């Protein structure tokens, strides 16, 4: 390995007085002083959220207003900090969504445990749980931050997709070609 010896020159007289360096330093700070501030003034100004951002996990409904979750509990099992708790339940026979068979009776996400990893969104076969852009959550008690089903649907809203997987399945069954 070639060794390169860097020559260290002794300081010149001008350098030893510090003055030229101080003056050029003052020039640099003055130049920076004239630049505009780069601060984002947070509560009024919000940052641009990039695509694929992982914020608060929420439940969504499909465009017919049916809750997409079928309480398969995959998200509950995959959740690393065990923030999700699902109480599975059936769907009332009289409901027009009866062919979906299952829906969560209760769906809880403990936002104090959630680590926003996005595994629940990835694992969900129904695309029912989605991480939103919202990043600022607060509450006055621990109980308040365990989000219940109602709150989760409020935050999630509707996902405007047009898969209608279960409706298509029902139509096929009616036409006689099950699966």
């Amino acid at each position, binding site marked *: 390995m070639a060794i390169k010896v860097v020559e260290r020159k002794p300081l010149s007289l001008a350098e030893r007085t510090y003055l030229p360096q*101080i003056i050029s330093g003052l020039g640099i*700070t003055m130049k920076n002083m004239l630049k505009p501030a780069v601060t984002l*003034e947070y509560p009024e100004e919000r940052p641009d959220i990039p695509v694929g951002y992982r914020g608060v996990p929420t439940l969504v409904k499909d465009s017919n207003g049916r809750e997409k979750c079928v309480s398969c509990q995959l998200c509950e099992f995959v959740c690393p900090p065990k923030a999700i708790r699902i109480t599975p339940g059936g769907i009332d026979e009289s409901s027009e969504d009866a062919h979906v068979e299952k829906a969560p009776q209760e769906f809880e996400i403990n936002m104090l445990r959630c680590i926003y990893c996005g595994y629940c969104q990835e694992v969900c076969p129904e695309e029912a749980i989605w991480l939103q852009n919202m990043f600022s959550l607060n509450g006055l008690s621990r109980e308040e931050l365990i989000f219940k089903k109602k709150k989760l649907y409020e935050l999630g809203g509707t996902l405007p997709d047009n898969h209608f997987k279960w409706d298509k399945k029902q139509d096929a069954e009616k036409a006689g070609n099950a699966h």
Partner: protein
Amino acid sequence: MELTHFIWLVTKALLMIAVVMGCSAYAVLLERKVAAAIQWRPGPNRTQIPIFGGLPIIGRILTRIGIFQPVADGLKFVFKEEPFPKHVNTFYFLLAPMVAFIPAMTTMTVMPFGVYTNEAGEAAPLVLANLDIGILFILAVSSLGVYGIVLGGWASNSKFPFLGGIRASAQMISYELAMGMALLPVLMWFGGSLNLFDIVQGQSAHMFKWTIIYQPLSAFIFLVALFAETNRLPFDMAESETDLVAGFNTEYGAFKFGLFFVGEYAHIIIGSGVFTLLFLGGWYPPFFTDALPEGWIGSVLSVLIFFFKVLGLVFFFMWIRWTLPRFRYDQVMKLGWERLLPLAIANLVAYAIIIALIAQIQN
């Protein structure tokens, strides 16, 4: 003494104190704003006072430039919990902030800040006490300020304040010498008068009569020593928060710290004022010196010009602070004793010879 005269004197003094205290408070704001600008931040811009802050457009602008911030800063010092360590020497611990604060406030009594024409038709200074030994008084009293720091450091009875106090005293001794030596040629230049008013009147004609033009080296040495005297970066040995926590005021909090803090800024303002008087032509504008009109307009103008010169210097102090890192302790000592002091002595001898030669030629 007549009662009315007495009341007038007290009013003047109180007014002066109010102005200097106000300026110190706003110097803190200026410091924060300058720091913010250099670091691309907006600086304090949220503090509002209900009525003024709510004004339609002006209130918004005033809030953005932080006009109300000093009020919040001051109130914070008053309302904070007052920590009082058990291991301190109570008497000196309480005395130290006052000793640091009082000299800074006392020096302003002899500092002229404007000019007016008195009944006899002569130019007279706007000043609380026009002492013939003005500059000597300022030097004597302002160097008392270091006792506050040393006392504070010693009475705190803990390591970091102690080190800070020792550093401050060593630094003060080193730079006081250079400062005095740099001042002597200026005093000789103006015929040996120690009266600040006479010194400013001697620079009145135009910008090229300013002392800084004739004696740039004296001005430079004096300025560097002034930085050291006021404990400003790059000479803030007494505080050096990176290696001494907060230096001499580590154990102080709430209003006691506030006194140190305001004292420091008052010191900077007074120091800038003295530099302006000695080297920058005091209250005389750089050009059109004859344009300073007679009567009260002229007086107001002179005070304003003086104010803006001092403001410029205070800004320079802050600009330097946010540009330069702190010197190492041994570098400070070396700079003071090996560079500035010999330079100041050489400067003094050179100007003594020059002034003698000029006197010879004129005779």
